[in-house]
């Protein structure tokens, strides 16, 4: 018995040590980003380079610049508008589809579902050329809201797939009871299916939010106006001046952009894990 305990203790120590080292190495890039955002731009090429800035050289000038001189607020609002609209619309249309596909199985809905799943294997960026042409024809180029239908279309397959799993688990007895009470499809969807699937909606929405919040290639392609840029393009734009890059500004803006994401992540962890593992464990 003692021998086993000693072995267990040893194994636990090894685990904690490895995890601690790994985690430290793993977080260094982010820490370096944060520390750089508090340095004056002139100190970026100091010698020797430092991981942590000298305390007397700490400065808030980068944040001051980003918050007062740049269009950060506007970029932030743009990103919020696009992301929130995307998750609301995606939740509505995907849950409706998932409800019908999950609960009214016939050849038509099965084919539709298979079709939706197949498109998941095509990397989104490969379609950028025809999508750009489409955006042009529909007059969606250089329109902030013009991003939304594309984002919604991208997240529909994953969202439908996830929510369908939950819809299928709604007991048929409950549905039967509704039909007997004379409820129609719409009522069952809004009163029964949606509330029961709300955990799935929540985790799907978090993922969709991240997708829209960080999307770069498409927004960079169709948005021109400085005042319509979302955060990723704004950050990339700060970096783009290749003659000299003000890394302090770039990273201050990055930190401000990451704050809402990290907050959402920490407070909604449960939904994250749920969303990630739903597809994987079932196989």
């Amino acid at each position, binding site marked *: 018995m003692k021998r086993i305990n000693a072995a267990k203790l040893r194994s636990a120590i090894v685990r904690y040590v490895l995890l601690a080292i790994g985690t430290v190495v793993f977080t260094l890039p982010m820490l370096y980003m944060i520390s750089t955002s508090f340095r004056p*731009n*002139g100190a*970026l*090429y100091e*010698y*020797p380079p430092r991981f942590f800035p000298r305390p007397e050289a700490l400065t808030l000038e980068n944040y001051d610049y980003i918050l007062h001189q740049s269009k950060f607020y506007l970029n932030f*609002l743009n990103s*919020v*508008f696009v992301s*929130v*609209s995307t*998750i*609301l619309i995606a939740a509505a249309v995907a849950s409706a589809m998932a409800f019908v596909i999950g609960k009214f199985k016939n050849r038509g809905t099965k084919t539709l579902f298979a079709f939706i799943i197949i498109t998941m294997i095509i990397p989104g960026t490969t379609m950028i050329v025809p999508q*750009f*042409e489409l*955006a*042009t024809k529909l*007059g969606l*180029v*250089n329109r*902030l809201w013009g991003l939304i239908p594309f984002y919604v279309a991208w997240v529909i397959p994953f969202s439908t797939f996830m929510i369908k799993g939950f819809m299928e688990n709604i007991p048929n007895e409950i549905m039967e009871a509704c039909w007997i009470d004379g409820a129609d499809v719409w009522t069952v969807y809004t009163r029964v299916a949606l509330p029961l699937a*709300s955990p799935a909606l*929540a985790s799907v929405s978090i993922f969709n939010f991240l997708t829209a919040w960080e999307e770069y290639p498409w927004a960079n*392609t169709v948005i*021109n*106006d*400085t*005042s319509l840029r979302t955060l990723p393009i704004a950050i990339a*734009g*700060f970096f*783009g*001046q*290749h*003659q*000299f*890059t*003000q890394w302090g*500004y770039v990273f201050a803006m990055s930190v401000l952009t990451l704050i809402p994401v990290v907050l959402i992540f920490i407070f909604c962890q449960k939904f994250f894990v749920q969303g990630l593992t739903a597809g994987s464990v079932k196989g």
Partner: protein
Amino acid sequence: MSTLRKLFAVVLACTLLLSACAALAEGETVTINFWHHYSAQSAENETLMNVLIPAFEAENPGIKVNAVSHEWAELHDKVLVSANSNALPDVARCDIAWLPEFQQMGILVALDEEMPDFTKVSGQLLDSAMSTAQIGGHYYGLALNTNSKIVFYNTAMLEAANVAVPTTMDEWVEAVKALSGENENGQQVWGWNEPALAGWNICPFIWSFGGALTNEDQTVATGYVNGPATVKAVETFAQLVQDGAITGFNSGDIPMTDGFGTGRYAMMLEGPWKSAELAGAYPDVAYGTAPIPAGEGGSVSVLGGEDIAMFNTANQEAAWKFMQFMTSEFAETEMAKCGQIPVNVAALESDTVKNADYAPFIEAIQTARARPTVAAWSEMDNGLQVALTAVVNGEKTAQEALDELAAEWDALLK
């Protein structure tokens, strides 16, 4: 979940309300879109946003200017793409090298045909500068500013290495080598910085070495871009790169201004805007300027500059007003304060310009040459960069790479 939902609803409502307000406020005004490549955090951009546009809008009630800053190469690509998606701006500040290409696409307005007072307006601008906007007998833009590049050198570094400012290409090679090595921290320093391998960067060497890119008529490249003088220029440059004496065009290099300001690059070839940039970011660095060293072809720099052009989808009346404003004495004088050499004759006479010490640049412009004024230039320039990259990395000899390039260019020039 329900609080989350309420929060979403509130945020969405606010955003919608805001955009609605913005839309209402616009009212009866005309908005013209102006694309440019003044970099976003530069003094030029600040002058544009805080001085020029407010002044223009005050002068012209009913016209609003939506100025959009793009990175240089991105602006070119965005214009091409937008031409096919009906999303062109009204007006853009274009590198003089792009105009033939845009003109060939048929997206530019021939100003001398459409604007009755064109001659009056263009008469206020330098003829030599206006010639950059002339293609096939018509004018497709107004000259906005002009420039050329001269040598900037770090005085202290040249003194410490006991190197004189090079005046010939042979001296230049020796100087660049002598200035390279290590500083007291054991960090590598380079004698010369070149931030890219495009025509804008390499042409001054090719021309000063006595080489050429094409024949006079710009119809043939073989025998010119792979001629002996051009090959020698490229070989010399590549050798210095391989000796660790030139750098700057790699992704991992210190950016030009930072490297020069911190004493890691001893010399560079740059335009008039650099003085303002250095004064802002590295006010302590002491530097001097000189013309590009002379080789067998003389001291030949590259002619730069921008024209302001109108696209055929523009609101012509408002766009023309804005173009006139941007080339007016007032606007050009303001821009002259941050490194843009005016082409407005009256602005050139102003005290601002006289005090700005543009003399060395204006002198360089006298002998500077323009990059080929052909529609295919952007594509040729891409090919040139690929060829030069292969040479400086030692994958091909200069002769091999330029022979291939010449064949490629011949096809493009047809």
